[in-house]
């Protein structure tokens, strides 16, 4: 189990957090490669179903930011 790595689904708002994730890149900040970002038009569009579906499909964590 020692080399197990979680897979995290990240739902990021197009207007803020997604841009922040871009800026983290521009600033060459380093972070673990476990995150799979899904861009959403606004966190207002975030449905609880997205979280449930993610967990159902084997994702270990869900991050919503906006």
């Amino acid at each position, binding site marked *: 189990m020692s080399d197990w790595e979680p897979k995290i689904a990240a739902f990021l708002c197009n207007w803020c957090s997604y841009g922040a994730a871009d800026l983290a890149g521009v600033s060459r900040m380093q972070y673990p490669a476990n995150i799979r970002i899904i861009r959403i038009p606004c966190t207002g569009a975030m449905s609880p179903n997205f979280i449930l579906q*993610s967990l159902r499909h084997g994702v270990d964590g869900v991050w919503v930011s906006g």
Partner: protein
Amino acid sequence: MNIDILANSEIESVQGEQGYFEVKVRTKARYIDPQACTGCGECAAHCPISAVDVYNQSMGERRAIYIDYAQAVPLSFAIDQEACIGCGLCEKMCLAGAIKYDDAPQQNTLQVGSITLAVGTRTFDPSGLDFLGYGRFPNVVTSAEFERILSASGPYFGHLMRPLDREEPRKIAWLQCVGSRDTNNCGNAYCSSVCCMYAVKEAVIAKEHAGGDLDCAVFYMDMRTYGKDFERYYDQAREEEGVRFIRSRVHTITEVEESGDLELSFVDDAGRMQSEVFNMVVLSVGLETSPQTLELAEKFGLEVTDNRFCRTSTFAPIATSREGITVCGAFQGPKDIPSSVVDAGAAASAVGEALASARFSETRTKEVVPEKNVQGERPSIGVFVCKCGSNIAGVIDVAGVRDYAAKLPFVDYVTDNLYTCSQNTQEDMAEIIHEKNLNRVIVASCSPKTHEPLFQETLTNAGINKYLFSMVNIRNQDSWVHRNNPDLATEKAKDLVRMAVSNVALKEPLEEPELGIHQSALVIGGGISGMTSALSLARQGHDTHLVEQSSALGGQARFLYKTWKGEDIQSHLQELIAAVQAEPGLQVHLQTSVTQVDGFVGNFTSTLDNGEKEQTVTHGVTVMATGAGELEPAEYGYGQDARIKTALELDRLFQTDDPELKSVNTAVFIQCVGSREPERPYCSRVCCTHSIQNALELKTRNPAMNVYVLHRDIRTYGEKENLYNQARQAGVLFIRYNPEDKPVVQPKDGNLTVTVTDPILGRPLEIQTDLLTLATAIVPKRDEQLANFFKISHNDDGFFAERHAKMGPAEFATDGMFLCGLAHYPKSIDESIAQGKAAAGKAITLLAQEVIHSSGEVARVDPMYCSSCGVCVSICPYSAPSFIEEGRFAGKAQINPSLCKGCGLCAASCRSGAISLRGSDNRQIYAMIEAI
């Protein structure tokens, strides 16, 4: 498309006149071809030479080949010739071949009809003020430096530290009015307008960054939070965030040995000498015009004020002394972002008015490629993986990702490119789409935030609907952030490509609803701002209806006497009214109200009722200029004694040269009557200047008169500070009172007595006065019916809520709706005029399009599923959903695609699952989730 940006350029000379200017522009050598440069940053990563990072206020370093900041436009690097040693490394690294060591300055001659100066300002350099220790004590920084310290892209990555030892400060002091309101040390007598608010903001943000323990203290003379919602922010900072506000001017800063802490010596409000030690000091530096700007002004032949700002008049606030040249922003006068944005809109509209006869004569338009119908076709996906020089390829196995993509379902074509965004790759891409008959495209490269529109345009040029596209971010959110884990980064890139393939396969071509814009305008409110707006619209060729509820044009300006610059208001107002009445295409409706409104952006139908008959007008845009009124005070004995007046009543005495004024030997003004109170927690912005103007008028008429102004803070922002100085020189006495200990007014035995506690003596002072003027609050009208008609909202104070406090001050969040004047917030005449023009300018950018295409990514209701619960109707911030009124689906919801912004709030809130967001519907999101 219609804006050419000449960066890195200077004006050499200007000749000619309005309509026919010839401008010589010198573009400095950049040593990089901005067309070829993709902004990838590979060059800077290898440049061995470091230089001072001016963008970060010289607190950090950058390379000799650099880009000013991450969001710079154009996104192109430049070589700092003074730092560069010419080693040639960047030329070797640049795969785009953009380096041009032999670049030379270029000269262009432009033929233009008008010129707008938006040359900005600079912050005051406090090095010369030795008592502050700036430059000697590392922990004394300017506010501009502190902004960079707080910024995530700043020298400390947003971590709050002090420069000396990179320690986190526990106590920070802000010193206001450094380089402002100071004739002794720097000659800048004016108020810089922005520093009080930014200091409060910096203190609050510093507390956010540091957690609750940080002690922030602001040393000030008058707290000038006069903007919209600013007073609330100040109250919150003081009451809830615990920022300390100390009314004192610090006279000396000394450094505490070893610790680098700073000891501040000052006299407190009670007159006692105090000293306090802080870990760090921020100097709230003012704004000033640079010598380069003054040189430019001379080249243009423009007049400047004594304070070195561009000279303008109250009634033409953006017109310079030379016809055809307008000015906006902080060269017009020190100002904040919203005022600068308003100025910019005003300048654009003024230019539009001046060049109305040449309108559309040099407009560039795009050629339209007919779109191929791919509906019902099996998805055929092309995947283009970008190397971005070595930005992506240096970390991620691009060929591996490409080959992986080739095996995914529906993928019929894969390739990799050195720079997918380059002009020739774009042309190749369009060719490939055509040749391979692709109907879906994926680009795995940088960020959709910067490049999606570019690739979508390529699709459009290839005849494919631009919504059949998906972008995978494998640079900003992959190769750049997982540099040390190439394997994991490659795996992530493959995952992201797989998710995008699942997503794009489900995408459908989306229509962009076309909407014709009716070319006429309705302006509601015939005050100064409404008239200005209407006139501007009409002069630019749009039929305009100006509706005024009362029987005369002029609004509140009818009651005012003089501007703070001494200009007569009534004569200028009459000129404006005459211009409005003479303007063809501008129809004035007096004693008229709007009784019914239908429609939305581009197609409003309003019913106007003047009591005798109803008239229906169709208009594409609406400007709200409904104004505000004067508070009728319920305190200080108003109404009990004829000698107690409001500010407007005093103006009337001046206007009519009332003999009553002759018998006045003592006059008192009380400020903040009804403003900055718990029930009205905003500053009415204009009253300090107004009272001081009137105090001076009284002094001019009778220099022996005793004039007192009782105030809480004097808020004569900008160059209006001159007036405050003049008033003090003329002997007007200013006495500050506390809101807990307000002045007491007693009309008795024929005398009128005002008692106020003098803050210096600490004792009550009795003034027997012949005239008491109350500087009453400006109160909003709050017309709920109009707000409902046009689907616009008010803020907590009852003023209209603009689209964005900073970037959208003259427009509503609802499309096609614009605002100006007192209905937005209290403001002076020049500010009302600027906003009136800005609202017109903004409206015209919409009208000029004639036909608009709204986004295809909008919400749609399936009426079969809709349960008519109304959640979408009440939740939408843009008023896009409504109930269908008749027919088979009456009572069900529908969404107006022209108003929908595609946020998806309704889709997520719909209990029946009837709403889907086109282009990003649940099926597509689920497909991505399943493919993770």
